């Protein structure tokens, strides 16, 4: 098997908390090594993110299902994951799903109507990676993938 094949399997592994994103979109797959076995390096997002273990299990199953014996899934801390690692494709998917992708700007566009007339409700949201916002034009609340 080739590295490229392994990456194509990983591209099908969803993030358990935001299933519209794959772990490749999220930018947490750091390295794939194909040798006697296959090893995959995964960078955790937030220290306490409960999804980390679920992701490691999903990666292991994806490899086993594709015939890899005793795959190795390693957790690597550096370079640390930041939201800059989310791919363009990942940002597009987030927006389409209704989550505003991370932005350097303090003006966050509403993912429903694209208005910039929005306000922060809380810096913390339903998961470690999101903040709660609302749109003052279409009046919909929305989640913002916080920039870290």
């Amino acid at each position, binding site marked *: 098997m080739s590295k490229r094949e392994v990456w194509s399997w990983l591209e099908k592994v969803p993030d358990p908390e935001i299933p519209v994103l794959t772990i490749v979109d999220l930018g947490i797959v750091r390295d794939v090594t194909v040798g006697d076995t296959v090893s995959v390096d995964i960078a*955790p997002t*937030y*220290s*306490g*993110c*409960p999804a980390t273990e679920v992701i490691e299990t999903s990666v292991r199953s994806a490899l086993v299902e594709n015939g890899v014996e005793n795959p190795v899934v390693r957790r690597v*801390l*550096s370079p*640390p994951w*930041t939201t800059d690692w989310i791919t363009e494709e990942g940002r597009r998917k987030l927006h389409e799903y209704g989550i505003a992708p991370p932005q350097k700007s303090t003006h966050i566009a509403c993912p429903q109507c694209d208005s910039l007339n929005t306000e922060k*409700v*809380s*810096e*913390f*949201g*339903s998961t*470690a990676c999101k903040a*709660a916002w609302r749109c003052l034009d279409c009046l919909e609340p929305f989640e913002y993938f*916080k920039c*870290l």
Partner: protein
Amino acid sequence: LVAGMPDLEEELANANFALDFLGQARMFYTYAGELEGNGRSEDDFAFLRDENEYHNLLLLERPVEHFGDSIAKLVLFETFYLAQLEALRNCDDGRIAEIATRAQKEVRYHLRHNSQWLVRLGDGTEESHARMQQSIDATWQFTGEMFTADEVDEVFANEFNGPDLAAIRERWHAEINDLLARATLTRPDDGWMASGGKTGRHTENFGYMLAEMQYLQRSHPGATW
């Protein structure tokens, strides 16, 4: 830590702080277990140690009676913790440096939120000002311990290029003075400071905290679900 906040958003915020602290603790405990080499896991450190085997700061055992207590505790601790993590990024232990690099981003995010609350409550109504001041006054005597080096701090500073507590103390005082001034709060005098946490002598409240955290593993050893 989580319940009893003034609104749902703050409870979410506190649940998020707790989750980050939990994740950071897990990484540190896992590493401690590897270094020790006796096969102890992160869970063994968390659930099976007795009170006097914990060497945490007394500040972190303070009971929270109202929101002001929570903000006082978090701002006073995290201003210290952030400076400590920033210093640990450059220490000679690669694994600790990695954990610190990860954790400091999270703590900086909390601290921004909690500092805003300190200013909002201090510079708010007469009632919020009085209660915030009372929380700061009551918590102050637990801050001195953060800067008192024990053997671990000294060995780590000297042999592993660890944090310089004197420098951190200076930075902490400057930042806290500035924040308290912005919050129109009076900085308490540095009087008698409580200590003992770092040598395993704790305040009464710690027993209740441990009981709540450990009772399941103590009553049903090895229980998993």
